[in-house]
């Protein structure tokens, strides 16, 4: 047969078709179909986690100061899950979402995996990986140079906490080096501890006994939004032996307000007036604890000082705060004020607490004083269900530190932030004042080197623009952060600490009026990256600096120090994971105070700031000034805290951001809460884009209509608007600190800003 083109095509087609049909009878296509399906079931890019022996390691969560016990599940030594530790006295198994997402702080794109040296401009994100030797040599070289120039005080260190041995070790380093500028980031505790110091003469950590109180007036404290020891608060809320009454006073229906027995909307910033108004009713109706007030308190009634000058007593002052007047200030009806006061005074274990939201901003001293006085009126100071202050514990034994002449000269210099100065004698740290002081300094910056650990000032200090400007003037910034946070990304060197699960650390936490739990955070896994324990880094730097500094650090490493410092308690701590210290004082001692009068001072005689020398030291309601004129800025912006957003120096893990509602964040834009009536007035609808302007900055937001916010007030959450970390967090929403500045309390220097005036225009 002749094969021409046509028959070639015909037979070719027939052959192909026949072949195709024939092959269907062979196992090949069926096997292939099956194999392809099996391949889709085992795609090589979908991970298959390795199985192995399951073990558990108990430890403590140090992601926040809460000190919750955790139990880490490991498979072949690989941590796979974090649960609450059931029998830990702090949290009894309860954990917040951040604690549960802990493994995302161990691995992830925002971790700094080796020492880094800045290559490009500050904040540009160009880094060079360097060895620990090189990085430490560079940093200590600069520190040695400052000392050689006789300016050790120009070194400052910002830390996130002053509890436990790591901050103390760093404090010791600064002392031996010769700088008084150890600055701890602010918390609401600062104002409360000062109020307790002024009224009780006792320096210590304030502890409200939420566990045993049965009637709680919370002046904006987000008990269930992450305030205090979050894991513990949730546990106490869930396991109430006898039901508590919770009265939440704040302008926004927070999660705490939603769970409270009563939510009282109050004009923001007028909490002091309400506290004094409640005191007024309690005194007028003679509902106060007469035993305490008459026997253990001073300054309740008029009193005369040694110069013969008569001073108003608390009761006299409170007379001015009639329900009617307070109602005008706070927006709460007189009837509500009266019934609240009565209920509070008649409760068996009432307590009043403050510290807005998570308690990041201290607030005014007057507010804390007024609230402490309220607690004193019902006599619940230093007793079960009441409030007390636990002294700084001395469970760790430190050898005496000897310092050289340079250090001694440096230490005699005043603190850069003004804390402890004549102006602010009772304040210990004033981080909020730092940017302004650096920015207004003539010539060279008074801070030449800044060390930052467990803190993220570039994000958390109010008025980010000013902070950035100040940091620009500091020649050397060293971050010890395990994460590429805003401050780390602005640093010159990053000497990364271990992440919390790789780190040894003692964690002291006060859990009741006199009970302190010291837990040991033990590494659950060997360090995954080229990081170094911050304690070891400081010991190493001290040794490199030599002389007296080196002598102040005789230990090989942090663990060696901890063993020695805890001596006989070390073994117990290592074995049990925690020890408890009881600070209970015998009855009479509990009501003997360290004040001049040895009594609880309703009239705090120790309060003698420059401004108030002539005035009465009694708490008083003076409106906290708020930035911005009412003409241009018709609304008031307040920040709010949520348990699903980390507003402090740590930041959200991807899991936490995943839990954030779409009424808080949508794509990359944050939602602003506004009352529907206010929104209507501005012509704004749900989901509208709007430009939010404050005297400090501006941001694009989306509008979320929320009935649960006071008309005229708008709110944004803290914890968004990061510019660093990774794409799982960066550039989502806006950082309230870029919009709100700090308002200095003239009495303490602490930040008392509760909001800022704002303007909202539709885009």
């Amino acid at each position: 047969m002749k094969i021409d083109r046509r028959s070639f095509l015909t037979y070719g087609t027939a052959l192909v078709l026949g072949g195709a049909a024939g092959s269907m009878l062979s196992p090949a296509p069926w096997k292939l179909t099956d194999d392809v399906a099996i391949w889709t079931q085992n795609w090589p890019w979908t991970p298959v986690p390795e199985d192995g022996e399951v073990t558990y390691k108990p430890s403590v969560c140090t992601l926040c100061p809460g000190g919750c016990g955790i139990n880490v599940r490991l498979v072949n030594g690989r941590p796979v899950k974090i649960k609450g530790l059931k029998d830990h006295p702090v949290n009894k198994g309860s954990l917040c979402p951040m604690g549960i997402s802990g493994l995302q702080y161990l691995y992830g794109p925002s971790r700094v995996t080796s020492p880094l040296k800045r290559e490009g401009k500050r904040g540009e994100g160009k880094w060079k990986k360097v060895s620990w030797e090189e990085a430490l040599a560079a940093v200590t070289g600069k520190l040695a140079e400052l000392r050689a120039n006789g300016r050790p005080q120009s070194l400052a260190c910002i830390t996130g906490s002053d509890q436990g041995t790591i901050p103390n070790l760093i404090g010791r380093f600064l002392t031996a080096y010769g700088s008084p500028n150890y600055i701890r980031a602010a918390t609401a505790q600062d104002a409360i501890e000062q109020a307790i110091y002024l009224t009780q003469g006792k320096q210590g950590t304030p502890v409200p006994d939420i566990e045993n109180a049965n009637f709680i007036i919370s002046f904006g404290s987000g008990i269930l939004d992450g305030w205090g020891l979050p894991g513990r608060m949730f546990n106490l809320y869930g396991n109430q032996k006898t039901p508590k009454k919770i009265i939440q006073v704040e302008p926004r229906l927070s999660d705490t307000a939603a769970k409270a027995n009563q939510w009282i909307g109050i004009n923001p910033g007028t909490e002091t007036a309400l506290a004094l108004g409640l005191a007024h009713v309690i005194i007028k109706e003679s509902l106060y604890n007469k035993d305490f007030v008459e026997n253990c308190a001073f300054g309740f009634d008029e009193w005369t000082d040694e110069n013969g000058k008569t001073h108003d007593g608390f009761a006299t002052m409170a007379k001015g705060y009639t329900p009617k007047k307070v109602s005008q200030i706070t927006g709460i009806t007189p009837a509500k004020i009266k019934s609240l006061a009565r209920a509070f005074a008649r409760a068996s274990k009432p307590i009043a607490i403050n510290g807005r939201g998570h308690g990041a901003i201290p607030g005014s001293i007057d507010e804390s004083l007024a609230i402490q006085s309220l607690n004193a009126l019902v006599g619940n100071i230093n007793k079960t269900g009441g409030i007390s202050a636990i002294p700084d514990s001395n469970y760790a034994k430190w050898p005496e530190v000897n310092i050289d002449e340079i250090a001694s000269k440096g230490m005699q210099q005043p603190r850069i932030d003004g804390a402890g100065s004549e102006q602010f004698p009772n304040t210990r740290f004033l981080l909020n004042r730092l940017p302004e002081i650096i920015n207004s300094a003539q010539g060279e910056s008074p801070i030449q080197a800044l060390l930052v650990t467990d803190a993220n000032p570039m994000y958390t200090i109010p008025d980010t623009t000013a902070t950035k400007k100040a940091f620009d003037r500091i020649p050397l910034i060293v971050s010890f952060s395990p994460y590429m946070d805003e401050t780390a990304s602005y640093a010159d060197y990053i000497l990364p600490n271990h992440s919390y699960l790789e780190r040894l650390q003692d964690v002291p936490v006060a859990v009741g009026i006199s009970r302190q739990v010291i837990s040991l955070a033990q590494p659950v896994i060997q360090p995954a990256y080229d990081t170094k324990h911050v304690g070891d880094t400081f010991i190493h730097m001290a040794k490199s600096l030599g002389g007296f500094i080196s002598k102040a650090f005789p230990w090989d490493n942090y663990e060696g120090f901890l063993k020695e410092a805890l001596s006989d308690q070390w073994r117990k701590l290592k074995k049990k994971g925690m020890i408890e210290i009881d600070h209970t004082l015998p009855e009479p001692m509990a009501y003997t105070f360290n004040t001049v009068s040895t009594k609880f001072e309703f009239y705090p005689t120790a309060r003698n700031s420059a401004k108030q020398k002539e005035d009465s030291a009694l708490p008083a309601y003076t409106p906290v000034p708020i930035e911005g004129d009412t003409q241009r800025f018709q609304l008031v912006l307040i920040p709010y805290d949520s348990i699903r957003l980390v507003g402090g120096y740590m930041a959200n893990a991807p899991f936490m951001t995943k839990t954030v509602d779409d009424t808080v964040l949508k794509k990359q834009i944050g939602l602003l809460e506004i009352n529907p009536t206010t929104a209507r007035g501005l012509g704004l609808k749900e989901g509208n884009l709007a430009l939010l302007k404050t005297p400090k900055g501006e941001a694009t937001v989306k509008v979320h209509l929320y009935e649960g916010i006071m008309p005229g007030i708008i709110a944004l959450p803290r914890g968004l608007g990061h510019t660093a970390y990774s794409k799982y967090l960066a550039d989502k929403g806006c950082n309230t600190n870029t919009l709100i500045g700090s308002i200095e309390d003239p009495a303490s220097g602490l930040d008392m800003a509760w909001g800022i005036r704002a303007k909202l225009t539709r885009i």
Partner: protein
Amino acid sequence: MNETPLIPAGVKRCSKWQFSLWMAAATAVLLWGVYAMFLIWYKGLNQTNMNDAYGFALWIWADLAIIAIGGGAFFSGFLTYIIGKKELKNIINFAVIIGFICYSCALLILAIDIGQPLRGWFIFWHANVHSMLTEVAFCLSCYFAVLTVEFIPLILENPKLDKKPFLHHLSHNMHGIMAIFAATGVFLSFFHQGSLGGVAGVLYGRPFAFREHIFIWPFTFFLFTWSAAACGPCFTILVTKITEMITRKKLVKDNVIQLFAKISGWMIITYIIAKTIDTIYWAFVTAPGMGFTLMDFYNDSTYNIGLLFAEIVICGFIPGLILITKRGRENSFLLMTAVILAVIGVCLNRWVMVLQVMAVPLFSFNDWYTYMPSWQEVATTILPVAYGIIVISLAYRYLPVFPQEKELNPID
């Protein structure tokens, strides 16, 4: 290459160039769809705008709609081979081609629509016989096989192929037993059209879709079969008319169209009465039992009560009434209006039974769910249209699709 031997004898076709241009345009659209299709297969369903509330969306609607309008094939088969309406033999070829196009596209869309196309055959292998979708898949595939079998003899009648003795005999023998295939096709179609209706009707978690059952079948089961039988012929008529318009030739005699239209009209009227009864029972008995009033399902700006009115009255009773009256269907404008409305009506019904089912919020704290298809979804949904145009064009050019064409358009 001279294509004359490929073109059936005695009919006139447009020039090769004109045809090529037409095909090129259709192919361009087709390729756009094919590109989107591969994009979806490669990158996954994230290329669509479907989401967890819209697990079923545009594609499933397209599937349901093209199967409904492709219903002309099984119904004409039923009428021709089982009832014995011999006139319809003059349009059945075309109905089969349309059916073939519709069903092949439905299968293709299903293959794009599933998240794991490479193991889509699990629906057969690991079949759950209680699932309506299983029934759909089986009957759909089987009926597609039947349609292919019905299409093959027509392909074999291409003058070139007909010259091969084996193919010539095959075509003849397949024609000989076509009634058996048609009967099987009717059986399969009844179940898959029905089970497509069942897909929505059995969803007792979705009060908008759920209907009372007769034995294991919800009302929608019967309504879907009924509506496909009613409106499928309308689509066949519509495409025939469009083909006649484009080719500028009369291809099917009026009596054939009239008969088909009349039967369709009665089917539509009876269907829409049944649909109305179903709607009333659902609105006043079924839904209130679940805590819903009729207006709860229609209080959205898009999904408003007008939709129900449009489906039942405008696209139901009106075309039905036109088609059952002699004067109505003999007026070519009214006939076209009626068939278009009927096709829109059945598509609208499939739309609400897929998309509105997803859109209705079940909790008072939820809003209506909204959805806008992505271009990839649109492109892959338009793909069948281009594909259909290509297949019809090829079939019309090279196959003796319309037996009456020669008679109606003599060339000399």
